[in-house]
């Protein structure tokens, strides 16, 4: 590609990559029990929470970093990470948006987060997590009328300890894996959602995560509980400033769907991916898991992963309730030196449980994108069904696309169907488009969007548009 528009296309940069100048209230780097006590005290946590954190920390010390993912990175020095960093004004505790640091609000504006009136227009309730703490949650009142609890998890720990104690760690136990253990010990904030019995949450709930301070690890924790017969759709977005060094993001998300409840969880992940040389970028090591605890429950994960230097993430569903449903729709795009190892686990335990997996991996530049998935039918999963489709699209001859599906069946009445294909954007396709007057990057964008269509249609509308744009930006310079 040599025309002018291509140069312009290639020169597009990571658009969320600016830093905000806000005084931080940070700890020095390093991790020990005192740091955990500090975090817990800072948040006025009840005793049970501190105990839980310390238990997690002690378990974590004995755990090893996972090595099975198809990713390469230098060893992480966990003592060179800042485990707590809050914007200064937090000490006074913003009671409303008016009290929030205006610089912070401008940050959100730059990010295009629909806070303030724009939130009202979009009809989205937002909990924004800036580095380590939740800053503001909009629409609290309207939600509380419906009985919905939507607040920072630090607040839930204090105000709804019975719910937190019952469900925190019930889906992702502290010993689940290295990063989940670390998160359990040091998580600073995140969102908490409880939808009462029979309530359909009146609006989409949304969280924006952003890492700002240098050398800061972000360890947010999200817990969503949908009580019997309820429904909630939850959106998660993330960005981070451009920095030369790698930053760690190790979040844990737990979803609990009780009988007849439905949780739809959508993510557009746009952490800083590093530059064209592979310098900097976020290490995104996230544990996301939901349990369909009761009959007819449904959990649906939709993710568009375009950011991060390394993504290590397997949003999963434990299908425990009979007739429950799990879904996973994913687009993972990697460019330059990005590495993504992502997929899902569908653990079928109950009768007539169903799961669908549609995973689309797009690799460009020198990147590697892997799908890693597990479908397991337990002996009790009578009549279980799974359909999996993993498709890879390779753009250029220096990238890699991989598929590692694990399929395990211990039930003769279960049916698993798995398909995987690979394709490329061929010279012939590009030539045809160009011959019809469509330039190469437009053609690639069209082909990529078509490739991802099945997943995009699962996203809430405003996210679908954003996702399409993100892919375009992320593919900069992919065709040459």
């Amino acid at each position, binding site marked *: 590609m040599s025309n002018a528009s291509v140069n312009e296309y290639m020169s597009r940069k990571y658009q969320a990559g600016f830093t905000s100048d806000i005084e931080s209230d940070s700890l020095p780097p390093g991790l020990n029990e005192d740091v955990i006590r500090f975090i817990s005290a800072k948040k006025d946590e009840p005793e049970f929470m501190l105990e839980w954190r310390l238990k997690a920390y002690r378990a974590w010390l004995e755990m090893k970093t996972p090595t099975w993912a198809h990713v390469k990175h230098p060893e992480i020095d966990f003592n060179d990470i800042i485990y707590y960093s809050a914007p200064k004004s937090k000490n006074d505790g913003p009671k409303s948006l008016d009290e929030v640091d205006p610089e912070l609000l401008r940050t959100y504006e730059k990010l295009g987060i629909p806070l303030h009136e724009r939130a009202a227009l979009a009809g989205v309730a937002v909990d924004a997590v800036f580095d380590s703490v939740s800053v503001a949650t909009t629409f609290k009142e309207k939600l509380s009328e419906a009985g919905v609890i939507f607040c920072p998890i630090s607040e839930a720990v204090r105000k709804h300890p019975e719910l937190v104690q019952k469900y925190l760690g019930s889906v992702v136990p502290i010993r689940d894996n290295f990063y989940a253990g670390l998160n359990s010990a040091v998580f600073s904030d995140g969102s908490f959602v409880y939808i009462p019995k029979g309530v359909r949450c009146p609006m989409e709930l949304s969280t924006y995560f952003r890492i700002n301070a240098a050398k800061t690890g972000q360890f947010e924790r999200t817990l969503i509980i949908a009580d019997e017969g309820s429904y909630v759709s939850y959106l998660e977005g993330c960005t981070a400033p451009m920095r030369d060094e790698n930053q760690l993001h190790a979040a844990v998300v737990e979803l609990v769907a009780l009988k007849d409840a439905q949780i739809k969880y959508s993510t557009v992940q746009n952490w800083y991916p590093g530059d064209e040389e592979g310098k900097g970028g976020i290490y995104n090591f996230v544990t996301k898991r939901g349990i369909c605890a009761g009959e007819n429950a449904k959990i649906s994960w939709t993710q568009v992963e375009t950011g991060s230097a390394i993504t290590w993430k397997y949003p999963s569903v434990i299908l425990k309730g009979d007739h429950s449903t799990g879904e996973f729709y994913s687009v993972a795009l990697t460019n330059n030196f990005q590495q993504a190892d992502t997929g899902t686990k569908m653990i079928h335990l109950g009768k007539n449980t169903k799961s669908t997996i549609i995973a689309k991996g797009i690799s460009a530049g020198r990147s590697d994108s892997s799908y890693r998935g597990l479908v397991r039918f337990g002996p009790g999963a009578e009549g279980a069904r799974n359909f999996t489709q993993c498709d890879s699209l390779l753009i250029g001859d220096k990238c890699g696309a*991989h598929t590692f599906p694990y399929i*395990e069946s211990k039930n003769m009445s279960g049916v698993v169907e798995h398909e995987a294909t*690979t394709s490329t954007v061929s010279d012939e396709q590009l030539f045809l488009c160009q011959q019809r007057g469509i330039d190469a990057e437009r053609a690639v964008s069209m082909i990529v969007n078509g490739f991802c269509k099945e997943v995009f249609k699962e996203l809430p509308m405003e996210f679908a548009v954003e996702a399409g744009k993100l892919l375009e930006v992320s593919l900069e310079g992919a065709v040459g």
Partner: protein
Amino acid sequence: MSAELTQTSPTDLDSKSFGEQAQPLSLPDDLRDWLVDQALARSADQRWSSAGERFKQIQADALQTLKATPFPTRKTESWRYTSVQPLIAAVNAAASSADANADPASEECLQPEALQALIDQADLVVRFSDTGEAMLKLGEAQAAHLLSFTLHQASGESTKAPNGEADLLGEFGSRVPQGYYPFVSVNAALLSTCLEIRVAAASDDSESVKPRILLLNGSQDAGQGSLSDRQHSRVLLKLARDAHAELTEVRLDAGSAAVFATSVLEASLEANSRLQHYQFSAAAASDSLYAAAFIKLGNHANYAFNGQSTGSALSRTDLTVELTAPGAYAALNAHMLLNGNNRCDYHTALEHMAPHCESDEQVRSIVSDKGKAVFNGRIHIHRDAQKTRAEMNNRNLLMSPQAEVNTKPELEIYADDVKCAHGATIGQLDASAVFYCKSRGIDEQSARSLLSEAFIVETIQLMPAQAQQDLAMALLQRFQETV
């Protein structure tokens, strides 16, 4: 290394044989240590009459590697679904059974007629016995003159082909890829026979002059409660440019002893050569078997693998094909017929290293009772392997509530202009097809066996040779009768 071998006195060695084992083995690494001891013990009475020094070196090197290799546990990725515990149990059982060998096997190995047909048409038949010795017979078929070979035996005697030696020993181990192959080291450390074969091209290109090589493994002799663990064979095979060959490996075990056997094939196919490779395993339920085949394909070389296994307590096959030059083609077909407590594990890897190569793979399983089928199929497209076509299909039929299937079809792709696809299914027989049969008067049992047979017959029909198809059908019938 060889110094270490000579340090151990014969008396010490005796104390390490069966029956006097101090403690039962429990961990996989205990098994490894026991195998190391066995190898040391046996090295004393090995009398390779040809290339003895070479084999001593091979075994010494293998021992060195083996000592440093942790044995697979459930946490070992490439062995996560297959456990070495049955072999540990067999070793322990043999150690605690005082009257081993006292009760020779009474059960005759039922030899299907179809096997006789294979024997009759073979140019070279090698029969491996429980003692680790092999008997070689040159057939009267017309293609034997294209073979040059040497059969080396640890027990002493070696046999050479009338028209010359193969001279391939220098390549021993060279086809084994980088990676974790603990039982390949075991095979070399305990090596009982090594067969090296070169196949020359016929002057005229017709199929009728394709040399047929038949390797027969089987145990019938050892007694109840003992462990027959002397069969560890290595085959080095080289097909010259334009050469054709057929290699058939058959294992039929009917003895009452548990068998632990390993076999490793290292083959290289030069330009435009063709190898049809068959592997049949109808082992006894108590057997622990390891087989590996490492195949390198040159320009336009053509390799077809057809495997059929009824599994055993431990049955693992590693099959790696490297397509190293343009135009190479590999077809891998395998099927597993499992009942009782039998397990079977095929780990295949297609290494597409050059452009314009193709591969097709079909693996199917029928799993009854408490059987367990494992398939790991890897397609690896290297950076330079543009214009590759690779397709893989795995289908599994679960016939009973406690049957289990674990499958992992993998793609690892580093070139963009390729066509790769895989599919995997697990399920039971189609209920509407069963009803259709019943509506025509066929009872449930017959309908199920008719339909499951059809499921396998499709892959049997992919076998290029009739005699092998017949054997596969005979073994399938035998399996169906036991279900």
